């Protein structure tokens, strides 16, 4: 079997809910090959988003590890401490996690999460700005702008560059979010219920765009509770009782 692009081993994550501890992930395992498109399904509150956040280095597991291209995403100390403290903010482990988010991963969220003060082009360009050190921005600025224009054109919003998020429809906002997630050419695109806030027509358009990206070789991890959306994926996994298993054929 070839080396997986992303390998999740024995992931554990729980939340303290008052006096009770809610175990969301209980030894979750995942192998993701390059160019693969998987959909993770599960009931509400089953931990789909938590798993996606851990896979994408947005959250930290209490136990287990995620390997990207064979390299560990989390340092052992980070797994024990969930709160960010003074030492964590500037720690090497934190910087490592940031590097994964800035260069290897792209995120699309259910509620778009665009910055309302920025227009379409600026929202997309922000990803490149964040991922580029200040001192080298001047040299890459033109190329970054070119890439942003290209990806915005790709999602069909070339005419709406100067529009702010509140001047766009839900589907258009999600397309901007996809453009923002793709502008730095991530190795993996994480999508958390990307159509969950859209009507059927807009949802279909978005999924066709996602499927097209996959056909072009983009590795995608998508979380959804909608079997119709999951059908676009190569492989569908079900998250139940904190573990992943292949979903039964529908």
């Amino acid at each position, binding site marked *: 079997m070839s080396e997986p692009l992303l390998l999740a081993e024995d992931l554990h994550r729980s939340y303290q809910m008052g006096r009770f501890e809610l175990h969301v992930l209980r030894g979750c395992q995942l192998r993701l090959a390059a160019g693969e498109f998987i959909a993770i399904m599960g009931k509400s509150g089953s931990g789909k988003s938590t798993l996606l956040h851990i896979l994408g280095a947005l959250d930290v597991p209490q136990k287990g590890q995620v390997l990207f291209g064979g390299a560990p995403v989390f340092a052992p100390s980070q797994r024990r401490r969930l709160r960010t403290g003074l030492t964590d903010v500037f720690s090497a482990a934190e910087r490592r996690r940031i590097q994964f988010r800035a260069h290897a991963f792209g995120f699309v969220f259910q509620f778009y999460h665009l910055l309302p*003060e920025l227009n379409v082009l600026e929202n997309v360009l922000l990803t490149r700005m964040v991922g580029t050190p200040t001192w080298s921005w001047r040299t890459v600025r033109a190329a970054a702008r070119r890439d942003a224009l290209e990806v915005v054109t790709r999602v069909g919003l070339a005419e709406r560059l100067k529009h702010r998020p509140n001047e766009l429809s839900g589907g258009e906002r999600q397309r901007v979010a996809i453009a923002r997630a793709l502008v730095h050419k991530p190795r993996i695109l994480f999508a958390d219920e990307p159509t969950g806030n859209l009507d059927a027509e807009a949802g279909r358009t978005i999924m066709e765009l996602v499927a097209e990206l996959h056909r072009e070789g983009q590795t995608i991890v998508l979380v959804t509770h909608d079997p119709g959306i999951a059908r676009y994926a190569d492989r569908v996994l079900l998250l139940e009782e904190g573990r992943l298993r292949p979903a039964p054929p529908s």
Partner: protein
Amino acid sequence: MYKLFLTLRYLRKRRIAYFAIAAVMLCVAMVLIVLSVMGGWLEMVKKQARGLLGDVIVDNRAYPGFPLYQEFIDAISTWPEIVKATPVIYTYGLFHFGQTEQSGMVRVVGVRLHDVYEVNAFKPSLFYERYYPGTTHLGEQGQPLGGWVPVIEGGHDSNTVILLPRLPSPYQDALEQARRQHAEHARQTGGDPLLRASDEVETPLSKALHEHDQPPIPGYYASNNDGDEPKITEDLRPGLILGRDIVAKRESDGRYDRYYPRGTLVDVTLLNTSIRARVDPVPILQRFRYVDDSRTGIYDIDSQHVYCDFDLLQKLLEMGPAARADGSGVAPARCSQIQIKVKGGLDGAALRKLTERLREKYLSFLDDPRFSLDLTDRKLISRIEAVTWQQSQAHIIAPVEKEKILVTILFGIISLVAVALILCILYMIVLQKTRDIGIVKALGGSSGGVALIFVIYGAAVGITGSILGTVFGTLVVKYINEIQDFLISINPRWRVWDLQVYSFDRIPSEVDPWDALFVVLAAIAASTIGSLAAAWRAGTMQPVEAIRHE
């Protein structure tokens, strides 16, 4: 790069930031105005203090004074640093105006008037000497009385003859000369060609002149009731210059209302002491004429000092050369103080070094075989010290310096409100922008980078606010007198700088660039500090928590 980009965007798009900027602006302007007015006041006080006594003062802090002053003055007059030195006598006395029964304790100062003119700023402080140059002297003199002289109104072709008030010679001549000089100066500088005393209340005499469109007679003169002609009375008395606050009332607009006409008789009872500082039970009574009034700008001096001729006072106090009681020769004449004017530019350490040399010079007289000094003389000389003008006037300068520091600290503390406001506003923005912070972190923004957005934001608020505050504060300080004039024109009660209280006519209106720089840097630092709590919260926020924030 995204830090600066987002900071500028938040500054432009979040209107709440304008309140923070306005708060910083007002605080910077407030502190700058206070610093400038207090600093300007301090500079004025220092300038006035330096003008009071000269650059260096030689004194022995003993009531009987010290001998050999003239020998000392003659010796140091050859030094290249010395411009002029003059002896002064101080004593205490009780003045009494028989006309009104006004009386009070005063410090009587004996001066050589024309030497003092060269040593310190006494001459510009005199009222009548300014408008009647050369007429103020401390020698014996009568009272000038104004009279009425016929004048042809409307030129020589007119037949209308009117009587106009005029002063006797040389007072009228001196006034005409001052008017000509003033008009010439005004022609060159473009000022008001008419010489007028803007700081005095109108008298019946000046009102009469005004009605006939004639230039006013500055000051207050009695009229000749015995006839029409102006004249000088024959009862000659030595001249006395009084502090202006003794003979005039200062109105709230800064003008003076004089109680007495020039030349009014004033009795001074002097306290006489022996060389051993024993008070003579028989006081000395001397009648003077009020010849001028002095305004130094220091109230304690202007309300408690009178000035008479040095030689006269020395004679009255028996401080001149006198045969010693034990028959051991002649005791040398004494004075209380020597005031010295030094060459321009000599200040600070160089001036202090000069004071040491002056003291050494005086002490060298103790071993000089030319002088026959008894034990008391030697003790009086041994006490002599030479001090700079800053040292001698420290009691006047130090309170204003302390007041400046105190007021600046108080207003600085008040300005902490702006820091608290920035803290609150930025914290509020962080709460509002929680999800944005999560997004930036999801895109790869570091905790330090996200925190830096808010630190830059605080600094930017500080920079913008302090620049605006500096401009606003500088404009207010520059036009502070015009602003006050405008307020008074609306309502006279809105006078902030009450001239009955403050000795200076105008509010100080100079901004010290170093003060401005200090205030700007402090404001930027305070704003940045105010942003730290918000920055910390933003930096330590977990991206997942931030994204899920409702």
